[in-house]
């Protein structure tokens, strides 16, 4: 049995301890805001927070999530108005949108630790998140805007 907290709610899981957190969130909890993109930790589409750190949910086995507090995009902000979410809307970042929840979770973790990042820090922190539509210029601008608003 694995006990963990997801968006503040206590959960118990009794399946394969090797199952990645990604599939637990998506298939078991039906929290599909955390996206599957590559399964090998190279795209960042499945970024969630564990104890406040941005991690790739595809790289975390359920056994490793035991006792941890997981935050997904669904739980990032009670009114879905985290400064990063607001900035994403104001800047008009998304095209297809599929990678954006991962981008937002990654950016939120960056700003929690580094409220006033330099341009180079933004670029470096966001380099693990792929966007095939190529919204990078706006992602950078939105992180910058969120930092100002934070």
């Amino acid at each position, binding site marked *: 049995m694995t006990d963990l907290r997801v968006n503040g709610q206590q959960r118990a899981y009794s399946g394969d301890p090797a199952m990645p957190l990604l599939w637990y969130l*998506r298939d078991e909890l039906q929290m599909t805001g955390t996206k599957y993109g590559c399964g090998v930790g190279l795209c960042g589409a499945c970024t969630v927070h564990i104890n406040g750190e941005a991690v790739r949910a595809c790289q975390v086995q359920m056994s490793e999530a035991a006792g941890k507090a997981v935050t997904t995009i669904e739980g990032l902000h009670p009114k879905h108005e985290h400064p990063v979410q607001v900035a*994403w*809307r104001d800047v*008009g970042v998304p*095209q297809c949108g*599929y990678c954006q*929840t991962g981008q937002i979770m990654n950016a939120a973790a960056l700003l929690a630790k580094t409220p006033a990042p330099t341009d180079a820090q933004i670029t470096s922190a966001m380099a693990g998140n792929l966007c095939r539509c190529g919204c990078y210029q706006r992602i950078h601008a939105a992180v910058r805007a969120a930092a100002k608003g934070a």
Partner: protein
Amino acid sequence: MNALSTHDKLVISNVSRRGLLKGIAATGGLVLAAQLPAVRGALAAYPTGAASMPNGVVSNPKIFVSIGSDGIVSIVAARAEMGNGAARTALPMIVADEMEADWDRVRVVQSPGDEKTYGNQDTDGSRSVRHFIQPMRACGAAARQMLETAAANTWKVPVGEVEAKLHEVVHKPSGRKLGYGALAADAAALAVPAEDKIKLKEASAFRYMGKGNVRISDIVDITTGKAMYGQDIVLPGMRFAVIARPPVVGGKVATLDSSAAMKVAGVEKIVTLAPTPAPAKFAPLGGVAVIAKNTWAALQGRDALKITWDDGPNKVYDSKAYRAQLEAAVKKPGKVERNEGDVDKALASATKVITAEYYAPHIAHATMEPPAATARMTGGKWEVWAPVQSPGGARDDIAAALGIKPEEMVVHTTLLGGGFGRKSKCDFAIEAALLSKDMGGAPVKVVWTREDDIQHGFYHTVTAERFEAGLDASNKVIAWRHRSAAPSFMANFVPDPKHPGDIELGMGWVDTPFNVPNMRMESGEAQSHLRVGWFRSVNNVAHAWSIQSFIAELASQLGKDPKDFLLEMIGPARIVDVAKSVTTPWWDYGEPQQVYPVDTGRLRKVTELAAEKAGWGKALPKGQGLGIAAHRSFVSYIATVVHVEIGDQGKITIPRVDTAIDCGFCVHPERVRSQMEGAAVMGLTLAKYGDITFKNGAVQQSNFNDYPLVRIDESPTQTNVYIVEHGIDVPASGVGEPGVPPFAPALCNAIFAATGKRIRQLPIGDQLAT
């Protein structure tokens, strides 16, 4: 075409019933929507290729618009939204603008796949705004006039005394007002105005069109995780499936041992799927499916399968050997596709002949959302949820695979997590339907992993391009021979084509708009051993890259400025009559020539604009350079200047990109800018990394480790976009695709300017490292 006036009997229905997916349902109340036969035709000031698309266009507001008693206006999006903002933002916005609806009170409702009702839904070819701006304007204007008539009837005043304005109708003399919600029922009972009675807005009255002041419809859902893509569908009792597909196209299972797979906890069933003989259109590849209680169990089960494959004849496909074949094909005369003047004679008499060859490999779409689809059958009725670019076409194809009529199934279009042409092909949705059928109609979601996506796609074609330019004594180009050899995507549809089809020929090749008296384009033979599929911008990518690179090579050899020489080659402003010299009928994006001619004046203008804004000619430090390229595609004109800096080990840094676009009347400038910004990144990825290779018939790459995409730390720092402004009288043209082709050549030309190194094969890879 007078179809808008032909409906006298209405059946009121609630559009919200169509919105089966959570979150997209319209509000209730009385609505304008009605079960009606489709209306063909629209108030059109100019003809477009829409007329020759299957099922044409529909402009009937009783199909597209409903108004709740609460005043919420629901507008149907019938095409697929894959990220450019056309289907679920721009087109509904056009309707809203014409009907004077307040965008804040508009809901967008996704239609199912049904072209008889909604008109063509094939979201491809950068056609959505180009083909639907006119019918959607007519639709909105008709709805506005019906609301005005309903108000005038209520007040018993002449309709000329009332005016619709921002979600209400005003009686001008008295100042009385009625909101759209209050008028909905009466308006719904009226006939749609006859086409010749529809009054479009003056452009000066546009609220949204041309302004760029409307956010994309799904931006809140996207940023909260509520947006539903194909991968995200969850149905009660749903099973999850992954498929081990044959590594070689056309291969089939020779032996299968599924005993270990069946022992994996959660695995419920193993199903063998047969391949479809070529030409297979979009039929699945076949293979062995593992159906399980969750994705993880299905993946574990698939890993435990023991399969040997009978690869079949495509096992011979080897990228290295095939490249040699293509390069041999372009060294000898090919099938003449366009011929102007006498190129042989002109080359023979030339003072100098300059020759160059280029090679560009297969690439994979790698949409951030790998393909996925869910199917179920309840009470004899099939439903499929899928991120398909062509929901109407997908319905036909899935129904055929199930052996049912299209009317017996509903295809729900989810959001597409990227499309780029991959999701024009509905093989993954057919897989879901076949597996659900095997499970007695139980809901089954087929999940493609990234490895599945990279290894079992429909790949952008591979191509060899050879150029010969003949110069006269004054260094003017008097002869231009361009040979191209590339396997055709037509192999999906017809047996064994040896040459490209008219669509491929027309993608920035036979329409090369240069001012050269003797020109010939010849296609070499090329057989397909894979599933070639169209990738964003299609053959324009390699054509533009090679042509625009060769132009810069010629400029260099002649000691001329590349921008000046490009303009010299384009020649004076004129309309190029391509049709007179082609040997296969000229496709030109399916558009009528009188509306969308090849206008070199517009190509010149974007070239000059991009150059001017980029500061063309400015002095740059050593190791930096500017490159330019210009290309007409999807009947739009784009020029791009790339500023590159080459560092240690050939590291490419791009501080700035300047792109100028002429896409006729620009409906949503903000989204056009975002498309151009994204096109620069996609262009950089394909130039720098894009390389799918085959060995023994199988793809050698598998995930982002060996098929990398450009990341934020290597993408252009700043992409500036300049939109040539036009009034509503200049027909809107393509936006989703045409930004891509000029990027790679502009980059390669910039690299040459910076280093003197000419890139003649893509990807650039480590060519700059030495």
